């Protein structure tokens, strides 16, 4: 049995810094933030995704993940989140490979759309200023975002996700120690 690597060095202030990065990312979709640079999570978990879950997931948030047993053991220990087998039962879904269909995740209801899941999606790279054209709340004119390694068919699934507003799924994209977010309100046009 291998030793678990450490979580946040300072659980209070590191969680606060990560939360502000995620808040900034959700408020200004497509702008890239940094988080979790000091973490050393087990593969295939990347630093940003690990930081986001350490900050937001706990015993109250069912977690679905595809990261294998080492990542699962690490998150179970540090977050204490119950791991569920069905993506649809999760408040947070962590996808290190091909994610479950957006429509298969919790969508919330018309009266309680906040029940929609948050998908933490690991991708290989994120770059500002090129690629997709993002518009919507949080964006003054337009933000550009290139996502390398986005799952196939993501854009058409996103159109369907947006159509269900106010229900739907919010996505946090993570690459290395960098992250950005796609709240359910954002419109994406191919670049």
């Amino acid at each position, binding site marked *: 049995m291998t030793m678990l690597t450490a979580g946040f060095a300072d659980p209070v202030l590191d969680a606060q810094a990560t939360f502000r990065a995620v808040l900034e990312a959700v408020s*200004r979709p497509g702008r890239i933030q940094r988080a979790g640079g000091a973490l050393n999570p087990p593969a295939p978990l990347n630093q940003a995704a690990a930081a986001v879950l350490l*900050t937001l997931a706990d015993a109250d948030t069912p977690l679905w993940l595809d990261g294998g047993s080492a990542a699962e053991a690490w998150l179970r220990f540090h977050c204490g989140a119950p791991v569920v087998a069905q993506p649809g039962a999760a*408040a947070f879904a962590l996808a290190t490979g091909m994610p479950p269909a957006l429509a298969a995740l919790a969508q919330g*209801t018309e009266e309680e759309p906040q029940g929609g899941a948050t998908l933490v999606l690991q991708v290989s790279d994120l770059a500002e200023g090129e690629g997709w054209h993002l518009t919507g709340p949080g964006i*003054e004119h337009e933000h550009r975002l290139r996502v390398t390694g986005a799952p196939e068919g993501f854009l058409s699934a996103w159109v369907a996700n947006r159509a269900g507003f106010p229900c739907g799924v*919010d996505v946090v994209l993570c690459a290395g120690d960098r992250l950005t977010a796609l709240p359910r309100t954002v419109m994406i046009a191919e670049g």
Partner: protein
Amino acid sequence: MSALESPRAEGATMEGYNFAYLDEATKRMIRRAILKAVAIPGHQIPFGAREMPLPYGWGTGGIQVTASILGPADTLKVIDQGSDDTTNAISIRRFFRRVAGVATTEHTAEASVIQTRHRIPERTLREDQIMVYQVPQPEPLFRLEPRRAETKRLHALADYGLMHVRLYEDIARLGHIAKAYDYPVMVNGRYLMSPSPIPAFDNPKMHRMAALQLFGAGREKRIYAIPPYTEVRSLDFEDHPFRPIRAPHACALCRSTDTYLDEVITDDAGGRMFVCSDTDFCAERQAATAQEAAE
């Protein structure tokens, strides 16, 4: 390593309390609510408001939101009706100085987080600032439909006819919409939202504001938000367009003619004066005028 042993920001904070007073599980719960609130602009998210060391009605919702976002690098400004030096504003500033050791300021331009009761500063806010509103009653339909289960359904259906009728009745009886504060707005064309009891004069500032706006209601246990650059429209009618209301005077101290004014009674013989409600803005204008006169 436990949270209490971790290194702290400069400036001694109170022993025995977590950074920014709230425990980490509570902050996580509030942070999750804030993120969903930003993702669904204008929609009220229930949260488990905690008992705070001051009573409901004194800004417990705003304080819990501020406590959940605040970090050691932040500079906090707190205003109460535009003023930095009322009891409520001073108490909340001192509270966060003691429990979080953060820097505080009275200058809008220096603040990264601005907690407010019932005003938006006159100075245009920037992208690197966050507004936190204290909200007494988050449900804009409350006076028309007191049943929560029913207002939830009305929001789900985007059925806001009740509010339009209420505004229309004002026009039919009085000739104009007689709502000077807490004037309802539509956020991103979807949700009817209470802007908290800010004067209607401030409503246009919410429209496409560069700063993120967060709203916390402690007693009513709701959090909602407006992301930056989001459409915020005050409800009105084509033939009765929304008009921000302002006393038709100049500020007696800084001579400003485009800011929101408070009426101050000066004696018991009918004496009164109008002064800027935003004390920081007024003081800056007075200082600038004094400097010009000196030069």
